[in-house]
Structures are given as structure tokens and as C-alpha cells.
């Protein structure tokens, strides 16, 4: 049972994480992102593609440019999964702690 992404290391890659953090400050076109990073523009585009496939960022057209921004639903959905997971786990723990069995 996983809450996994096909882009397993999407945020584990340090450059991608940096790109993600830059986008967290606000939407940006690829050129603006590339200017601030020590990697080439094609490399930035490739990283953005990975982040997009992972559901972390999305883009929109602005004239001839593509503007990337954070896809808030990506992490929100994960957080909700974890929230439900802990509800269920704690229910189970509570039942065990309250039972008369020697649970430990």
C-alpha cells in the first residue's frame, strides 16, 4: 500500500527541490528559473517535466512563454492520506491500550 509517485525521487534531487522551492515563492517562466540556477535551461526544463509528472507543478501558457507554478493539490492529497492513516492507526492503538489483554 503506497502513497507513491512514479517520480520517486522528484523532490529528493537537490536541484529539483531548489526549483520547487523557487516556485513556492510564485509562478515563474522557465527562463527566470534557469537564470538563478547553475544548470542549463534544457536541464531546468527536464527537471520541470519530472516535477510535473509527479503532480507537484503545473504550467500555463502566457503568450509564447510557459509559466510554471506549484500544484497545491499534490502535497495536499498526500497530507490527507497521511491524516487518514494516522486516524486509523490511532484507533487501533487506542483499542489495544484499553483492552484487558497484555498488549505489551
Amino acid at each position, binding site marked *: 500500500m503506497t*502513497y507513491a*509517485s512514479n517520480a520517486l525521487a522528484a*523532490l529528493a534531487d537537490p536541484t529539483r527541490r531548489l526549483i520547487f522551492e523557487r516556485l513556492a515563492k510564485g509562478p515563474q517562466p522557465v527562463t527566470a528559473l534557469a537564470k538563478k540556477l547553475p544548470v542549463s535551461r534544457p536541464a531546468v526544463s527536464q527537471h520541470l517535466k519530472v516535477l510535473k509528472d509527479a*503532480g507537484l507543478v503545473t504550467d500555463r501558457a502566457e503568450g509564447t512563454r510557459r509559466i510554471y507554478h506549484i500544484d497545491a493539490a499534490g502535497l495536499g492529497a498526500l497530507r490527507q492520506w497521511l491524516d487518514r492513516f494516522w486516524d486509523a492507526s490511532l484507533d487501533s492503538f487506542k483499542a489495544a491500550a484499553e483492552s484487558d489483554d497484555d498488549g505489551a
Partner: protein
Amino acid sequence: MNQIEPAPIRKSILVNAPQERAFQVFTAGMGGWWRPEHHIAKTPFADVVVEPRTGGRWFERDKDGTECEWGKVLAWDAPRRVVLAWQLNAEWKYDPDFITELEIRFTTEGSATRVELEHRDIEKFGATSAAVRAALDSTEGWERALAVFANAAPKA
């Protein structure tokens, strides 16, 4: 500071048991209550072990004795508090470089125990997948998820 930080998961329950028992069952007795479908090895676990010391291991042990790491004990403060490193990543695989913190506090309230859980650094998990979306099941689920995340989102 990363502005995209989904809020930690915070839970608070009241357990009708004394503090020491609550702590004991949570840690030493984890194999008895951990939901069996949440295992990482190919077979369900026979036990889940939280070694009772700071720096201790946290792992599942299968019927054949195989052990799979889940993380480690960051702070052991029995019977009041334990902090575990949850090191199963978004693929539900143990990763020694991946650490999220899970803090559980046990506080006496009369004859019962207030158990508070916080799972933090969850932005480290990264993305979701089509499988998660399917598991979440409904558009209402997505709308709630968006609302939950809204206060952490950047100004667009």
C-alpha cells in the same frame, strides 16, 4: 525557509488507560496494534519492534525472521514521550537519507492518558500518484485536500 510546508499531521486522543500502559502498548506492543495491511515486506509482519532507547532501531520482523527497517528512535523519554524517525518514503521504502519526525506525547488526565501525535516534515514526501488519487476516491476528497493545503500555498 521553504514556504511550501504543508502543516504537520496532529492528532489527539484520550485513552482509557494509565500513562505507562499507553506508552508500553504504543512502543513495546506496536506489533499488536499496527494495522496489518501497512507492512513493507512482501508478507505481513509477525512483530514491529521499537528498541527502547534513543538511537534504537524501528523495524518490522516477518514470520521467517526477516527484518525491514522503518526508521529509528530519535528520543526515548518513557513514559512521557517518544520521537521516532519515520523513514519510509513516498514509495513506502526505507531510505536512510529520508527522515520525517513522528512525536508522540503521553500525558496523564485523571485515570486516562492524553496521547498526542505529530508527524512533521511531511513536505519531504513529495508527490502523489494516480494510485493515491484513485484511493482518495472522490472529487470531494480533492477539494478538501486543497482546502487543507491552502494556508501553505504561495501567493500566486
